């Protein structure tokens, strides 16, 4: 089973071009979609989750038990296998977590109420909410709400799971717990995790893509992507006023404060004077791709 996206385009009515010829192949397993805020991640997620129309292009979920599903045309079919955790969502404040999950489970097609109860109870336990399952959702804290969101996405054994910026606003412990949970999701499931936190992808994903300004600018296994830039990232500690000077002469991909001084990473095929080599990581991949893409944009 895989999800293939072909030449997907979307321009909003206010003229913002959200997706530009996006082409991706997403295999089974955890797929990380990395990009800065406003890159078009959520637009892509929403389009796959049937909440938004595309101007052109195709999204297919291939090799499913029901054959190939055309996401754009067969919205109802895709919804039957979908688990979606939106970036932002709300709940009915006066309904309890248990009732709401049971309700969603039935909408997802689980019509046997006994089965439904088993699943809901198990999921509530899984996301550590069983002790508050009778409480109204309006009383939940941010983290609890997010866990509720995960539980609802997992209901009904979905084969396509989309989680959009799931860890935003979670404290480190909660984030950790969430990562563990995601890693448990079965092998024969397509899971798309959209995030702007490189670490999430590093920890979880076997495949990934980077998008920026609506374009896919990199795609592949994280290890391969890191390998491709190995030996091309250099580091230097500089004084802050010098930064503009370095930017003019090098491709500065990131700046970081270290003990009150500024450390910069640059991308260069060859060693540069005064720079030390660095062991490249996914973050360097991410920043190098983003900066080069955005510079291209500015030039063109």
């Amino acid at each position, binding site marked *: 089973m895989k999800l293939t996206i072909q030449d997907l385009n979307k321009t909003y009515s206010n003229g913002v071009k959200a997706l530009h010829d996006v082409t991706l192949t997403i295999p089974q397993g955890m797929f990380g979609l990395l990009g800065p805020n406003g890159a078009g991640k959520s637009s892509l997620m929403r389009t796959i*989750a*049937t909440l938004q129309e595309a101007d052109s292009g195709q999204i297919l979920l291939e090799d499913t038990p029901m054959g190939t599903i055309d996401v754009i045309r067969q919205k109802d079919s895709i919804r039957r296998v979908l688990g979606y955790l939106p970036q932002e969502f709300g709940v009915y404040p006066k309904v309890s977590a248990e009732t709401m999950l049971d309700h969603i489970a039935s*909408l*997802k*097609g*689980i*019509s046997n109420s006994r089965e439904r109860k088993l699943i809901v109870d198990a999921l509530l336990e*899984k996301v550590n909410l069983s002790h508050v399952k009778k409480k109204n959702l309006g009383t939940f804290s941010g983290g609890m709400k997010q866990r509720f969101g995960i539980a609802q996405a997992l209901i009904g054994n979905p084969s396509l799971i989309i989680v959009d910026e799931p860890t935003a606003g979670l404290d480190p*412990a909660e984030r950790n717990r969430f990562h563990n949970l995601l890693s448990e999701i079965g092998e024969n499931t397509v899971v798309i995790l959209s995030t702007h936190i490189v670490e999430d992808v590093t920890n979880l994903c076997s495949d990934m893509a980077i998008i920026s300004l609506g374009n896919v600018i990199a795609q592949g296994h994280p290890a391969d992507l890191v390998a491709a830039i190995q030996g091309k990232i250099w580091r230097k500690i500089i004084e802050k006023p010098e930064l503009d000077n370095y930017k003019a002469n090098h491709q500065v991909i990131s700046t970081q404060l270290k003990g009150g001084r500024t450390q910069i990473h640059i991308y260069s095929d060859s060693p540069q004077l005064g720079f030390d080599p660095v062991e490249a990581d996914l973050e360097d991949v991410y920043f190098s791709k983003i900066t080069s893409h955005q510079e291209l944009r500015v030039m063109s």
Partner: protein
Amino acid sequence: MFWNIFTFELKYRLKRPATYLYGLLLFLYAFLILIYGNGPASEKANVNSPYAISYLLILMSVFATMMSSAVMGVPVYRDIEHNTRSYFFSYPISERGYLLGRYLGSFLILIAIMSCACVGIVLGSLLGPVLNLADNVERYGPIRLWDYVQPMLVFVIPTVFFTGSLFFSLVALTRNVFVTYAGSLLLFIGYLLGITLASDLENKDIVDLLDPFALNTFTNATKYWTPAEQNELHAGLEGNVLLNRLLWGGIGLVTLLYTVFRFDFQRFLAIKLGKKSKTDGVTEKAKPLATLPVAEKIYSTKAYLTHLFRLTKLEFGNIIKDVYFLVILMGGVLFLFLDGWFADQIMGTRSLPTTYYMIEVKDFDYILFVFILIIFYTGESVHRDKAVHFDNIADALPVPNWVTYGSKFLALVGICFLLVNLVIVSGVLNQTVKGYFQYDFNQYFTDLYLIEFPEYLQLLMLAFFVHIMVNSKFTGHIITIGIWVVLIALRNFAELDYNLFFYSYTPGYRISDMNGFGHFLKPLLWFNLYWLAFGFALLIVGNLFWNRGSEGDLKTRWRLAKLRFTRLPMMALVVCLLIFVGSGIWIYYNVSVLNKYQTADETRELQAEYEKKYSRYERVAHPKITDLKVKIDLVPEERRVTANGIFTIVNKTARPLDSLHLLFSSPEYNHPKTKTLLIDGKDPKILLKDTVFRYYIYQLPRTLQPGDTARMEITITAQPKGFTNSGLNRELVYNGTFFDTGIFPTFGYNPNGELTSDKYRKKFGLPIKQYQQPPYTDAWGRSNFLFTQDGDWITFEGTVSTAPDQIAIMPGYLQKEWSANGRKYYQYKMDAPIAYFMNVSSARYAVKRDVWKGPDGKTVNIEVYHHPAHGLNIDRYVNSVKASMDYYNQYFSPYQFRQMRIMEFPRYAGFAQSFPNTVPYAESFGWVGDFRDPDKTDYAYYVTAHEVAHQWWGHQVMPSNTRGANQISESMAEYASLMVLKKTYGDNIMQSRLKYSLDRYLRGRSSEDKFEETLLDNDTRAYVWYDKGSVVLFALQDYIGEERLNRAFRDYVEKDAFQQKAPFTTSRDWYSYIKAATPDSLHYFLTDNFEKITLYENRITEAKAEPLKNDQYKVTMTVQTKKLYYDKAGKETGVGKAKDLIEIGIFAADAKNKKGMTEKVPLYLKKQWLAPGVHKLEFVVKGKPAKAGIDPYNKLIDRVSDDNVKPVD
């Protein structure tokens, strides 16, 4: 610091578009009312009279409560909403400076907004005459600054000060803006409550005080102002107005001060701690995800239907769990209950809680709440997922659109159903609490499920559609309400009422215990089908545009809608539209093809044309009917009648007659058709045939010489066709048919069909018509009877047939009754002469029979024909007939018939009418009155006495058709019935009856459209002939003595009863007998009250009592007396200077008489001559005085009747 905050607030407000929007709204509202000339009720008062300006401004201050809550609620809330409070208060500002600055800045803006209404009125007054949209240029008076400043200062500013301070304080202290919404709603409820209570005269003072807007206070203070006074006077800051303003202004001030002293930043900043679930960070060992059970997933229509049901339940719960929903609903139910509880009052007496009334109250106040609930909660429901951001999850669930969409709709349908059923709950509760157990569930269910429920659904469908299409809660509300405002404004201001074009409108209807839903149900069902089909079509379109997903822009939704427009929705839409168009065509066919539809203006135009064309025939000579034999065949099952009349007509003029003018009755409802018209057995030649106005001139087959007789035979059939756009169409009905001679044509031109309003007469180029009747000196007028010019005294007999289970009644005595051809036949014959004035009534009646025996052995059979379920008050009618017979036979003359019959007819009209020996009586008029409390006016008794009196005054003494002659009929019937009442219940209870007459007279003259005539010359004003007549004649018998006055009337009857030849009697004949009986010293009373318009201003200002020995008390009192004269327009022309005979009374505490009625207990009651001015009087009485007063029984017409009596200190 205060200054900075104040000016900042002003600047901030002046930059907000809402400020201008509110101002513009008020401006437009006032402006439109003014240019369309929708001013006070009377045509003689200016559209911009000080009275009208004040009223309009006060009304605005009621509606501006919403604005007041919006403007005054936010200045503090703003800092909470935008979270600026977290740093704003760290600035060096003081709490009082902050609060007062914000308050005064906003308050000033609020006053400025209110002033926009003044600007609207001024501009409307200037442009109104120029644009002339309402044909009444002369009704725009001068523009005077004080007319605007005065009501602003006295009414508007104190009111908005109160509401503003209240809302401001609520937010400042509770930090919750929703409180202001609830607060404004509560104020509304309080206000509506005031209106409900105000329907009883007794509660006037309480209502005056409790109305926070002083609207009731204002109308009570000004209700007796004549048009001339409305154009000049202002309601000053005195009496109840002053008290009211002090009360509410004071509450506003106290609230504001409390807030200023109570407010502090720390409390305001404190974060509200709600109940939160505790998070525990303990990681539990849960089973791995892979072990989760895998359930079978089912996606079938059956499963979807289950979802639909569950989602509906969830959404229904979401709505009814909302606190505000419950608050508004409780408000609505409270009104439903109170409106039912206070029931309809006739002369202060409540009716029994009949089922039809319990149903009708739903349209009083409840409907407003229903409106608010349906519109607002449709918005809540449609936008709920978006509002709580649950849509991101919900929209991606594998549920078809129609399930989500349908569940929202069905949940709201559930709300509608709940709302409908609350009417039943409230009604049954009301009936049970009042001990009335005749629940008519058939009426409840038919009305609420078949008529009302579809209407709520239509309301819902429109709101639902609008909310989906505009996809924004706020705009959705505005547009939905806007649509209704436009519909209502078009109907009320533009006089458009073609129901086919007005969404959700249906023809009016009335439920009757006698006739059930009668012929009304069918058109209602058709109209509901029509609008429901339209509503469902809207729903289908709405479903196509249902906004699923994150994109709400029009382009995407249009594209999606096209995609969703597949076979099924297309077919459903086509079906709905077919039903809509089909039923529309059927309705159009009924309303406009089978029947004729005219707008109000078209009707007036035709009236004008009729007058222009035929008024020249007004005095054309015609013969008079002397004998009538009828054969009436009623088929109530089909609402059909065939009426055959054989008329003997005689030329009573001095000239030969060769033609006959006939005016046939209107085809409006009953579609009468002339089957035969024969004169002396021949078809007369038609000289003029006008089918529009139904005016025909025939050539008589043989010229009628003076004194000659001819025989005219007419057969008319009538039956309503289909249904009409509106109208009660009450004459031919399934059970309770009631019609009169109007079914036959009348002779010549009938001036009653003319336009009377000056405004419209001018518009259509007709001269102003001052009077409907000629002066008493007019020979033509004196040659005709008051009620009909077609005949003088006639002899009458006839046969009437009807359905086998009904009794049919006509004037006369039953000669024979038999059954044939499955019909029931009744033959009646009158053995005494009667006027050409007969009725036909038929219904399934129960009959109560009794006999009155006179002192001379004469008997009168009394028969009461009533709806079998309405037997409660029958004895009151019987007893009243007996008491009337006693009195009138003794004091006026012997009764001319041997029988008196009263019969009930459905409540499509609300009167009783006296035909010879026959009185049809409306269903709502006494049969269902609740007379258990003896202090309530027993109007069944009283009105019956009035109608029986007409057998003398109107059927023995027949007034001529001249100005003033109506008083001989109506004022005398009133007088006679008052005397019966007095004889039965005693002098001391009469005031409680007469106060209604006084009130109606004073109100009547204040809304006079032309001018008020004197008792001697009044032609058409009921408030003069009933109400002034009552008060004046009652006072007269009190002043000169009942016996003495009755002797004069007896002489008058003896002289003028059954006048065989013209000239017939006039008000001057009547007056001459009254004058002769009145001593010279009291002639001033006659002049004042019969020949002039005179009002007293009597008042007691002080009353003190000192105890003496032996239970004796010395009472000193200060009284004022003043007598004012008015011209016909209502302008004061002078004051009386001579002494008047006025009653002075001192009373012990009220007691109960033998019949359980509260009555006055006079310790001293005597008339004395008083000159105008202030008098200090002193009396010694036996017994402890409780009250004292001048003219304490309001026998004289007094402008302010409730300051005549005062408790004794």
